[in-house]
């Protein structure tokens, strides 16, 4: 291995994971809205999980997150306003309502889920429930 740090390791890890996505059964068939808006990446951080969701242009007050058992619901609306009388040259952005439910295949602690929204990116910190964590058994 090389000695200098590689800032792209995280990126490559995502790309490898994307390539392996078809083979991954982490979510199984449990996500009810696979392929729908908003796109979600899920990472493992020690025992816990982090879901990172891209929602550019969505106002924080138009975003709702509900957690029940191991299910997380992300819903809201994205609105775009144009000046009146403007002529449109290029229109690539889309807007509308979204409602997506995510069921993670682990036991989570619903009260401890934290959400952070910044620069159009939602980060959900999903702690694994204490009862779900693996225990090391000491051999006498």
């Amino acid at each position, binding site marked *: 291995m090389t000695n200098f740090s590689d800032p792209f390791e995280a990126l490559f890890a995502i790309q*490898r994971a994307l390539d392996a996505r078809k083979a991954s059964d982490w979510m199984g068939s449990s996500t009810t809205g696979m392929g729908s808006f908003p796109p979600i990446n899920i990472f493992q951080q020690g025992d816990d999980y982090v879901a990172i969701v891209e929602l550019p242009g969505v106002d924080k007050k138009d975003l709702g997150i509900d957690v029940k058992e191991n299910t997380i619901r992300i819903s809201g609306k994205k609105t775009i306003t144009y000046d009146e009388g403007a*002529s449109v040259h290029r229109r690539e952005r889309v807007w509308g309502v979204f409602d997506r439910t995510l069921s993670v295949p682990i036991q989570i602690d619903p009260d401890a889920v934290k959400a952070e929204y910044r620069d159009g990116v939602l980060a959900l910190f999903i702690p694994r429930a204490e009862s779900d964590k693996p225990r090391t058994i000491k051999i006498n």
Partner: protein
Amino acid sequence: MASQPELPVQQKREVEKKPESTIPSRTFLPITDIFETDQALTVILEMPGVDKEKVDVNVENDILTIEGRIDYSKYEGLQPVYTEYNIGHYVRTFQISSKLEQGKISAELKDGVMTLVLPKAEKAKPRKIKVN
């Protein structure tokens, strides 16, 4: 609620690079809207995850370049287990007309969306001609 259409996911388009970069990073084209009023041309670009300190807007030889960089350090120590989208920097360039006041471009970044307002030069604004 039912009357509004459900949002589709937009796949990121990768930039076709002319000069090759020395570092192996991916760059995407921000999703962009452009509209024009009598006063100005407005360019709106979606760059989720880009901090306002990490944006460069440049005008050179009538070429407007918008560049936004992602902070990869936030992903340190995270192991992907399930992924649906790729991350990378954003860059997009537009040929702009000299009829725009290139020195008066204003930019604002909110919720990962950048709004650039390019005011029109006085001579390019429409004039009402009074008929005597």
